[in-house]
């Protein structure tokens, strides 16, 4: 092997390197094109998911319009007295203002079953002995003024005087979860 053969071999190696470099460049381009395609698929999938989410949200909004309207109407009533102390003060004041013969009054914090948004309620146990119309008017007015109030039990019986009525009432005031 003489110097001419060596020169030829070197040139052949240079040619091979050029081919190799071109092939490497082509491979890099192809790999990048594949990545671009993958990114495009990912974008399409994400766009589809977004479209589905938006459709579900719109459907949920449409289905819950009445319920959300109901919540907006009633929530201020539930939020007006949202702690046990305020509820206790409120009912004590109302009983005093009514000037009824109040034999007993007791407050207790109780749990509410199957209602995660209203986990507790202030229970007020009241015993009155007074005139029937006065008692009924007070009770009716209380239910109108406090629309969230729940009368959980009431017992009416004869009072000690012939015109009197004995009323044992249990009221429940909901305490909304904060």
């Amino acid at each position, binding site marked *: 092997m*003489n*110097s*001419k053969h060596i020169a*030829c071999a070197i*040139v052949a190696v*240079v*040619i091979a390197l*050029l081919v190799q470099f*071109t092939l490497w*460049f*082509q491979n*890099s*381009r192809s790999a*990048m*094109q594949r*990545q*671009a395609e993958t*990114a*495009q698929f*990912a974008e399409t999938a*994400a766009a589809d*998911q*977004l479209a589905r*989410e*938006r459709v579900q*949200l719109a459907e*949920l*909004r449409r289905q*819950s319009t009445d*319920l*959300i309207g*109901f*919540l907006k109407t*009633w*929530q201020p*009533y*539930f939020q007006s007295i949202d702690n046990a102390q305020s509820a206790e003060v409120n009912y004590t004041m109302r009983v005093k203002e009514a000037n009824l013969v109040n034999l007993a009054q007791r407050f207790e914090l109780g749990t509410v*079953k*199957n*209602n*995660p*948004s*209203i986990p507790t309620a202030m229970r007020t146990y009241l015993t009155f002995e007074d005139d*029937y119309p006065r008692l009924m008017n007070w*009770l*009716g007015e209380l*239910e*109108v003024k406090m*629309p*969230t*109030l*729940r*009368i*959980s*039990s*009431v*017992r*009416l*019986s004869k009072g000690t005087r012939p015109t009197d009525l004995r009323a044992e009432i249990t009221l429940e005031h*909901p305490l909304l979860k904060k």
Partner: protein
Amino acid sequence: MQIASKQIDDFKTERKDITPPLPVILRLVPLLLYCSIIVAVVLGAVFFLQLQLAIKKREGHRIETENIAIETQKTQSERAALEAEIKKATDIESWVAGSRPIQPLLVEIARSMGARSSLIDLRIERDPDAPAQLKLAMKIGTDTTKQLDTTLDRIASQDYRTFSPQQNLGRGELDYRATLVSRQQRTPDVVPETPAP
């Protein structure tokens, strides 16, 4: 076909050959080098442009995917918030449904008493598991069941239906027990009578 030695440079300087000449086929090697350089440059340029375009495209899709993901997350958060509101509304509705005023019912029962009858004892309790249902227990001072029919009519006028009634008449007293279920449930269109605080 023979290639003329003067037309193609075979990297030899003009000197007397001291080694034997290369075979004719190997004279193509320089030509192949020139061609490969040209092809490599052209293809390299094309591949480079395509590579740049692919990078730009990939980055564009990536940024767009990230934006969509942010938008999706926002939509999911809105949905979760709405679901929480719906749950709260359902709970409040359930409370309101079980809080129908019972004073009108008490008044109707009391007013139903005739001249020869009296209400000795009246007890109404809400069922803790189903607050919309009322457990009624009353003791009426009467000799006949006619008074009970009148009272039940007045209860029905308040949109209550009676279930599981039990009655016992004896010694001028009538014991009556029943479960009352309202026909008119409070629905989302119900608005409180008093203005919002």
